[in-house]
């Protein structure tokens, strides 16, 4: 059997498995899963983790494990909302300033790791604490002056509703796919992640590639922030690394997509995984698992499960 046929067979098996899980889950919840309205809810909730995961894909693939992404989302979304509402900049403020903020914050985090030669997860955690503190500081002042600690996006919320969200999702997927699989930057990021020594010897500028990857990743993270701000209306500040919980679903999505990498490329795998992870939560809600601790416990288990699946056939010590 040719390599292409083998891959196609694996893709068919994967699709079959996902389909079977959906059918079984649907039966378990008395047919409430595969209804049009419920599927619409699932897709709506899968869009935010998809964008965050695409962002993570560009950053994590080159070996940078940035854990400040959650705090980045919260801070840049609030900056965008302030520009849109308080400064009267409208959509330009919401979109432009959120994206710019996300890129600047990501660059701060990544540069801190690359230039100061600190392991990226350490600099990421440090930056997460700083970003959270800035937002908390602002919220405290705002609660004293405005009476409410968080800014609410009253207008300009179309990007958080259907069908705009779905359109943005499709455009986001196309962009992620093309940049990751069909651009020099994407291929260089993958080369660095695959074998740093070879990438260096082949003349790839490591630092430039990693920082450029972080810019692209930040744009996806910024889009995620815009969508979530538009959908929810406000994103509350957190402290003590509470922002990490914002990206847990996306982390599960990335890990699951990694396990599918030999069957489908990462950007496609992220779509499947985001829908799959969101559906799991939907099913948990439908069968009555409490939305607080119960679902969070399941989320933790899912992240670990995805980690196990992503390294299923890895013959070595996973660090």
């Amino acid at each position, binding site marked *: 059997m040719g390599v292409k046929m083998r891959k196609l067979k694996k893709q068919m098996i994967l699709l079959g498995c996902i389909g079977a899980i959906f059918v079984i889950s649907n039966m378990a919840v008395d047919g409430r899963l595969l209804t049009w309205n419920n599927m619409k809810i699932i897709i709506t909730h899968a869009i935010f983790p998809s964008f965050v995961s695409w962002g993570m894909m560009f950053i994590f693939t080159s070996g940078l494990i940035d854990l400040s992404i959650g705090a980045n989302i919260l801070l840049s979304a609030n900056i965008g909302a302030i520009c849109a509402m308080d400064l009267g900049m409208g959509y330009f403020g919401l979109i432009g300033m959120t994206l710019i903020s996300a890129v600047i914050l990501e660059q701060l985090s990544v540069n801190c790791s690359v230039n100061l030669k600190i392991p990226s997860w350490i600099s990421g955690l440090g930056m997460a604490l700083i970003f959270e503190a800035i937002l908390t500081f602002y919220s405290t002042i705002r609660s004293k002056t405005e009476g409410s600690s968080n800014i609410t996006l009253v207008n300009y919320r179309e990007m958080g509703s259907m069908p705009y969200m779905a359109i943005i999702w499709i455009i986001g997927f196309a962009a992620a796919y093309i940049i990751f699989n069909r651009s*020099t930057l994407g291929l260089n990021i993958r*080369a660095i992640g695959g074998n740093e020594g*070879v990438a260096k010897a*082949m003349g790839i500028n490591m630092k430039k590639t990693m920082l450029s990857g972080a810019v692209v990743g930040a744009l996806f993270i910024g889009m995620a922030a815009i969508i979530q701000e538009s959908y929810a209306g406000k994103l509350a500040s957190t402290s003590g690394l509470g922002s990490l919980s914002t990206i847990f679903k996306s982390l599960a999505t990335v890990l699951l997509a990694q396990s599918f990498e030999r069957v489908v490329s990462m950007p496609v795998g992220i779509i499947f995984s985001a829908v799959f992870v969101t559906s799991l939560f939907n099913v948990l809600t439908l069968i009555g698992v409490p939305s607080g601790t119960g679902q969070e416990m399941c989320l933790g288990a899912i992240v670990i499960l995805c980690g196990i699946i992503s390294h299923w056939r890895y013959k070595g010590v996973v660090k």
Partner: protein
Amino acid sequence: MAEEILKTENLSKSFGATKANKNINITIHSGSVFGLAGENGSGKSTLASIICGIQKRDGGIIYKDGNEYNPANLIEANRLHVSMVVQELGVVGSLPPAINMFLGRTDEFTTGGIVNLNKMEEAANKQLKKWDLGSIPMDCMTEELSIEQRKILELARALSTDPDFLVLDEISQALSHDRREILYRFIKRFTKEGKTILMVTHDLDEMMEICDTIAVLRDGEMIETKPTSEFTINELKRKMIGREISGEYYRSDWKEEYQEEVILEVENLTVPDQLKDISFQLHKGEILGVCGLSDAGIHSLGRALFGMSERRTGKVCVKTTKALLNKPKDVIKAGGAYLSKDRDLDGLMLDASLGSNLAVPSVSDLSGRLGFLNPREVKNLAEEIKDSFEIKATGIEHIVKSLSGGNRQKVNLSRWLVKDLKFIILDCPTRGVDIGVKAYIYNILKKAKKEGIGILLISDELSETIGMSDRIMIMRDRRIAGILSRNTDFTEDKIIEVML
């Protein structure tokens, strides 16, 4: 006389206190194959790396085509038509082969920011076809290719930069008999076009056969450079080592000799797409050689016997105890060991110390009742192995990555041989090691045979299997094509006839 293409004057390079190259003067002419001979650690790879811009020289001058030549890196060297296939550089496994071939130059296939992968695949296939290097599947990830295919890919990658000076550092050692023939054909064609090859190889027969001129390096110094026709192989060995090689190299007897007792029994071993219906017995004190062309399945056999293959069927057991060997831990528990062909990837912990690498297989033996290790016992064991196997290192704290290829292989082999072994599976144990270490390894194998250890010797080198084995199992199309006895059938022609 052809024109001078490359010339070095007093080239020097040091790594700390170690002088890797001392005032090297060489002159290489266009259209020739220039061989660099020397033991592991003699400075061959350093010299080759400096020429290709991978390492910076400390002193001296290099001229190429009469002009001073000073590349900052491999890419700049490529621009000046110098390219290299490095001994241990490798490829990016998580990218397709075509991308690996043009990595760092993907802009050549980019229109409007989008890389045209079809065009890239076409160019990659064209490159392979142009030099008649055989085909490589392009619609998979490079990690799915065999070591040989990856090496050919690296060669094609080097050729895609259009070099007129090509450095081949230990490339043939990764190739099987048929792919070596492809390589030799390529070398002839390349030099016929007036282009030049600098070849580093430990296979002295190959060097004598292919090279026009040979330069011998020892301890970083140039010992002698002269036309190959003026060297004899013994003289070459003597110049490399600095003394006569004492003792035998291969076995001197021509008799199939081992004990009746069967140690390892294999019945109908099958791995989909890799092995079909393999059955044989390995006796106590026997060296059973395994050889075959590329894709014959010889390397898959080693992995399958050690329990590393997925979807394996059939039976592998210890004859006396009937213990089934399904997983690596079963093999180790039964007194078995396995040395993979890819020493650095599957065998060693490159970033760990020599001591840690040497002690790893014996950790369970050294553990106390509560599972704790006595650091002194671990240290003593590591030092004992280091001394008795003459591993050249500053101490047991020496990081394995910085050892020479030959010493790395000594580490890989010795740590198993100090255990109470019943059998060992060796996949290309002398790959990438010089004749001094080779002779040493062969002597160890002879000693192990005398002690009654059963040895399965998988090798791409026919001379090695002929020289060392009691029987040779020849594989073709993933099956056993025949088993020949040392008593009667050991000729290269006869083996190749069965291989084909």
